[in-house]
């Protein structure tokens, strides 16, 4: 680590006592770099085994990386906590201004424990934490209003992050998200509910500092190599132009786009919800995270008339991406793009994970069609594919919880299906709702054994498309590939590098960049550290009850064709067994 770098300063905040302290944890950052690596250690230290995810003992941990603010595209913040959605390891990543702001505030990590007696928000700047009353903000209908109020009340515009929860977090819906800078999220696994359980409405952090590098010439040359690759090479083109929704059409053509609760893997309406269609009809602005020239954030401009007054309109700016389009579009059999955007906007208002919300709504639709739930449960709402007015009403009920059915929906589709039936088409992995890839066994193995149950853990979907589509490999070979990729990704997430830049940050580039930031490491070191972090995460998962002896996969994945053909349950079994043995051999 470079002299004078504040990376190793960890800010510990106690919400019960309204107190804080700063501790130097060079030991952790030297050994595990930052991000995921340091995060899992801080989680082990601060999360008592078996603790209630919504109790005061569950810590909220934010960690950034050594390359954050030094190089472009290393602007992610890793959040670690025990997930109220899965009851196990909670890890969620967010861009926006979060990472740069925390780093510039003078911290590598923030650990928040306890529970405030009243709603508060935290203001972190100049090495100080101020605990501010948020009673007035609690219960506000639109999440963005909270952002507006805090923006007016806090200093350092342009240098700050404003993380906040909406009503979903306040109500402790298990898949509530934390929103930062209006359009970025700690989306998955329910960090918003953990905020809510602590009466923590928001967190603002800001600062402006710098570290002198040892060799300026070298620093600038490595910087330019990364910057030029990000702005000029074709590697980033798709994120930059149409953004992630560019995936809709190719994935549909391939037959891997989950449609109508994965009853199908091709959607006849894909053309209408493609990245091209959204760009042409709605794209209003493109935005970037701090210190990232790519600008992958795509914002739709949605104009809606007020019904009570002629020539009177409301224009909303709604962020769209591939996953929300899958979850609220194809998964709900929807081609009504206005409806999709309205539902997205509503999900933003409440502060829910859009992916889980969409998959829950898909389960509701099929369960209703099959008669597992009736008008009694839905309170006379009749869910139907592509009917977004009804979907919005269902969503509102998930927040308002008028009966036990909607309370159950607030705990996710795994829980709801355990009460009302329909497990076989509840598309969850380790209790987390699926992402938008039905590309083959690699994707589903990846969701199941990924430490976050995320497609981004290990990109099993990519192995399907690059290997399995043309070549037969054994279940064991597949497991090995998926796990090897996840181990390497522990390095990227420990450096807080955006996965979209994984093609730029090769091993060689990572080592050169790290050297500029004062970390002299070798390829072997990276391999060893990646493996160790992976194992540490699995240790936590096993400690909290995750098991690969006793797992279930939704039957639906074996009933719908993938680009690699139908998935053979025995092949999946073999792959999971192999994965289990590989993971356990390192324990």
């Amino acid at each position, binding site marked *: 680590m470079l002299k004078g770098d504040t990376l190793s300063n960890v800010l510990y905040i106690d919400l019960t006592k309204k107190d804080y302290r700063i501790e130097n944890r060079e030991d952790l950052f030297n050994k595990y770099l930052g991000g995921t690596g340091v995060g899992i250690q801080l989680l082990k230290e601060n999360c008592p085994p078996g603790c209630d995810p919504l109790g005061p003992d569950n810590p909220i941990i934010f960690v950034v990386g050594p390359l954050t*603010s030094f190089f472009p595209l290393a602007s992610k913040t890793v959040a670690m906590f025990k997930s109220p959605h899965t009851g196990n390891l909670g890890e969620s990543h967010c861009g926006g201004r979060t990472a740069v702001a925390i780093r510039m505030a003078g911290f590598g990590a923030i650990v928040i424990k306890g529970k405030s007696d009243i709603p508060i928000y935290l203001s972190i700047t100049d090495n100080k934490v101020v605990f501010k009353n948020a009673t007035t903000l609690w219960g506000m209908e639109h999440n963005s209003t909270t952002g*507006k109020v805090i923006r007016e009340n806090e200093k350092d515009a*342009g240098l700050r992050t404003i993380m906040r929860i909406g009503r979903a977090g306040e109500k402790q819906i298990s898949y509530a998200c934390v929103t930062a800078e209006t359009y970025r999220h700690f989306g998955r696994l329910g960090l918003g509910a953990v905020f809510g359980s602590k009466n923590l409405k928001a967190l603002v952090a800001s600062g*402006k500092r710098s*570290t002198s590098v040892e060799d*300026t010439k070298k620093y600038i040359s490595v910087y330019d190599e990364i910057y030029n690759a990000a702005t000029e090479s074709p590697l980033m083109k798709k994120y930059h132009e149409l953004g992630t929704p560019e995936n809709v059409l190719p994935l549909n053509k391939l037959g891997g786009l989950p449609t109508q609760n994965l009853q199908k893997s091709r959607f006849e309406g894909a053309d209408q919800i493609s990245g091209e269609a959204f760009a042409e009809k709605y794209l209003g*602005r493109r935005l970037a995270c701090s210190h990232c*020239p790519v*600008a992958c954030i795509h914002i739709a401009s949605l104009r809606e008339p007020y019904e009570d007054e002629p020539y009177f309109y409301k224009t909303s700016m709604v962020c769209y991406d591939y996953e929300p389009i899958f979850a609220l579009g194809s998964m709900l059999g929807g081609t009504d793009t206005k409806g999709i955007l309205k539902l997205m906007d509503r999900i933003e208002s409440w502060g829910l994970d859009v992916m889980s919300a969409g998959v829950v709504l898909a389960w509701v639709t099929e369960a209703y069609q099959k008669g597992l739930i009736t008008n009694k449960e839905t309170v006379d709402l009749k869910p139907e594919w592509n009917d977004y007015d009804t979907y919005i009403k269902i969503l509102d009920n998930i927040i308002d919880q008028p009966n036990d059915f909607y309370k159950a929906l607030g705990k996710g589709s795994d829980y709801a299906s355990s009460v009302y039936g329909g497990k076989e088409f509840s598309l969850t992995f380790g209790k987390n709702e699926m992402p938008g890839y039905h590309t083959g066994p690699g994707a589903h193995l990846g969701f199941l054994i990924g430490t976050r149950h995320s497609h981004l853990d290990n990109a099993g979907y990519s192995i399907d498309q690059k290997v399995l589509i043309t070549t037969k490999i054994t279940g064991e070979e597949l497991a090995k590939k998926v796990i090897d990729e996840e181990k390497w990704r522990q390095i990227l997430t420990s450096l807080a590098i955006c996965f979209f830049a994984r093609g730029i940050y090769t091993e060689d580039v990572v080592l050169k960049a790290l050297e*500029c930031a004062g970390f002299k490491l070798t390829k072997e070191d990276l391999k060893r550290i990646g493996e160790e972090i992976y194992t540490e995460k699995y240790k936590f998962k096993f400690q909290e009850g995750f098991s690969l002896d006793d797992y279930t996969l939704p039957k639906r994945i074996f009933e719908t064709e993938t680009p690699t053909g139908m998935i053979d349950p025995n092949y999946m079994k073999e792959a999971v067994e192999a994965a289990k043995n590989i993971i356990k051999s390192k324990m």
Partner: protein
Amino acid sequence: MRLTVVDAERCVGCQSCMFACTRRIGKAGLSKSCINIKSLGGMSKGFTVVVCRACTDPPCAKVCPTDALRVRKDGGVLLDPAKCVGCGNCKNACVLDAVFMDTKNRPMICIHCGYCVKYCPYGVLDIDKEGVTNA
């Protein structure tokens, strides 16, 4: 030579310019940046570029009690740190808020070197090699 803001509507808020400004003196971070990119009340409304616009008759220099700010040939000012007493008058005089203060309360004002322009991928910033007009 002076820095110009060609079209702030093209700004995506990547803040690469801000990092470039500190990096040009061999530091990683933002503490020496003389340019700030902030949203116009939320990112949905876009961004504003806060940087010295090279006034030919700069108010900041006029209010400097020690003549620490010298007017540049092409507009804007250059600071003589030895003369500066850190009164902050210059900061208060700038309607653009483009006078940034360092931790010792000394002003940091863009010197129009153009380094940040190389790191603006969307054509928001440019360098005007001729210009002395106050457009």
